[in-house]
């Protein structure tokens, strides 16, 4: 029972929705829409579960007197306060204030830091003895030049080169990559739908 019902649920839900992709039947469409809405609501609950997990994780750190637990205190204090502001005064200025002056600067600054690391990793990748890294960096430099705003004004030739590069080497190989990934996704989905793979019932494979 512990396994049968969830597997049945997965297979039935899967068949209803995939059938809705293929054929148009009103009652099937309604059923699929109900299921999808259920998935949206459950995704919300999954977030709640995740946040509870995060709180428990940090709570454990404080209880266990782990070094660096002051960071857990900050999370444990700031998280409920933000939730409280957001749920009790949803349209208020306070919630907007939190977004504008706390969330935005922190996130944007973290984003801006990435450039430093992204440039630094170039150093690490280069000293590989094969030609692959050389191709990668040559291509990177060419594309960076093509990104410069107004570069097309310099010569119509550059605009033509840019179009060609995007249409052929990038377009073609990206298409190959996308097709490969799509095949992988199709095979993996079919395995889940046919219940060959059922991670939701707990660990199944013993090695």
């Amino acid at each position, binding site marked *: 029972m512990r396994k049968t*019902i*969830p*597997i049945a*649920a*997965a297979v039935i*839900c*899967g068949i*209803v*929705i*995939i059938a809705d*992709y293929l054929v148009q039947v009103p009652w099937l469409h309604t059923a699929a829409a109900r*299921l999808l809405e*259920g*998935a*949206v609501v*459950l995704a*919300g*609950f*999954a977030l709640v579960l995740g946040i509870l997990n*995060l709180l428990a994780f940090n709570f454990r750190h404080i209880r266990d007197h782990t070094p660096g637990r002051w960071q857990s205190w*900050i999370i444990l204090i*700031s*998280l*409920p*306060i933000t*939730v409280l502001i*957001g*749920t009790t005064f*949803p349209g208020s*200025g306070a919630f907007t204030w939190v977004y*504008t*002056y*706390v969330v935005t600067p*922190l996130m*944007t*600054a973290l984003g*801006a830091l*990435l*450039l430093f690391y992204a440039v630094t990793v170039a150093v690490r990748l280069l000293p590989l003895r094969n030609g*692959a890294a050389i191709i*990668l*960096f040559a*291509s*990177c430099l060419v594309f960076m030049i093509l990104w410069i705003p107004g570069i097309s004004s310099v010569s119509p030739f550059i605009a033509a080169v840019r179009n060609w590069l995007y*249409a*052929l080497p*990038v*377009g*073609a*190989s990206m*298409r*190959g*990559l996308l*097709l*490969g990934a*799509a095949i992988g*996704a199709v095979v993996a*989905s*079919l395995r889940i739908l046919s219940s060959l793979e059922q991670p*939701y019932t707990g660990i199944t494979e013993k090695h």
Partner: protein
Amino acid sequence: MFAAEHIELAGLVCALFLTLAIFTRLIGDNKLFRFAQSLFVGVTSGYILALVLRSVIWPRILLLVQQPAQYWYYGLYFVLGLMLLARGLRKTNALANLPLGMLFGIGASVTLGGTLAGTLIPQTRALATPFTTTSLNTWPAWALLLNGVLVLVGALAVLGAFRFTLPSHSPVGFLSTVWSWLGRTLGRGLIMIILGALYAGALVSFYTLLVGRFSFLQQTISEVLGRLGI
């Protein structure tokens, strides 16, 4: 009570402080950065949770309470949602299998349908487009044809680079060997070219973010100083 402009000034100072705190990471790991990081995790998780509670769960609770006959299925979702939350405790662990099974079935079928209809079929069909279109643009017919052949070969070569079995010794084995060889040579080279293009794009993207932050710092510092009358 504080005046609105004081609150805004406090916000600007706070934003300035937090931005600089994050940037101290460049010098090295330090307490200020860790403080900012913890605050980021706390506040952003809280923000997203509040948003989900407010815009996904709460409206549906209201509908269920107001019109239970019409929206009975929301009740079902909430029961399933609570079962999902049971995953947090070891004893009630198995209850979550049902909603998870449902989610996996839905997720896999949505991915399957979407990938087939949106990527696999249209992208494969697009491989044939250059061979059958004559009035695409100003290109001459032979160039269009050559372009089509090159795109086809390129795409198949990259696909060949992702083969996971060794060619067998069957009659089709020869074709398979050729394909693998194409993947190993041309395919890998093309992968490196797109990785270079993606890397360049990411550098440009992150560069924009950094420039944006610098101009924010410039504007905010001058504004804060201006308001304080310095």
